[in-house]
């Protein structure tokens, strides 16, 4: 492998791995936030769509 090939391999692979890491971190945090949303949100959503709601 030439120095040029090594340069491109190192540069591009680090960028791709970092990008994948960013996407994974974002998805796991989005999931954590979704799970922590209070159940009243879904009740409100149900009310808006014509579902059962409180008095």
């Amino acid at each position, binding site marked *: 492998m030439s*120095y*040029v090939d090594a*340069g491109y391999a190192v*540069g591009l692979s680090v*960028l791709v791995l970092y990008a994948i890491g*960013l996407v994974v971190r974002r998805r796991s945090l989005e999931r954590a*936030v979704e799970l*922590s*949303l209070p159940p009243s949100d879904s009740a409100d959503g149900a009310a808006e769509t014509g579902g059962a709601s409180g008095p």
Partner: protein
Amino acid sequence: MSVRPEIPSAAAPRPRWLRIVGVAAVVSTAATVWLGLWVTPPDKIQGNLVRLVYLHPPIAWVALYLAFGLAALSSLLYLWRRTRSLFWDRLAAASVEVGVVFNALTLATGMLWGRPTWGVWWTWDARLTSTALLLVLFVGYLALRRVPADPEVRARRCAVAALIAFVDVPIVHFSVIWWQTLHQGATVLNSNLSPTIHGSMAWTLLLGFIALTLVFVWMVGVRYRIEVLADRTDAEHLEVSLAERWAEGDLDIAAIAAIAATNASNGGTGASLRPPTRVGP
């Protein structure tokens, strides 16, 4: 002094422009690699080694000027009272992290170019040393962000740290002029503003700059959202801990006030500090 505690909705959809930038970044980077490795001619003196010019300077451009420049500007806007907002602090944090990755790559690709050209992997040349120092300074910034503190205090001290670290950027830029260095002078942004690269090589280099700028914008966009989501989950963990402490009945008034202040400045989710209505056994 007030910090606008804005936390954009975590449930908000991902911006469409970010997806477009992401696709454009992938396409333009692929085009740069194709042109750089297979289409452009070898150099008269450097031969095929010149192909690293389509990668190394664009990476350095992103690290030094875009990432750390944006971090310094955001830090300045945070420190200025009129524009003080946690938005700038988060943008600086996102920009520095991406910049550190690009700075490390600048050194790595530079070493891979230096070994066959200069005969050494590393030398304590002014350009190389000041670039390595820049990496250390901004890694220090990232370490400072991990030190537990009130978000406002953390934002202020990190903004100052970013501005101090940024002082090294002009030193890196002018190091090849101020000192005798092994590293060559600027190819495009030289003192005469007359690029010493032409034809397909110049266009490919320009495309490389555009491609890695798009990569940077996409990465900062995603990293900024991570910062927002992390702030939100931190605030929620705080509320859960608070509820548990209420249940244990060992919260005093001073502790409540301190936690309320922290939560407010962190852009808390708005939950009140009243005790939970149902307390477990």
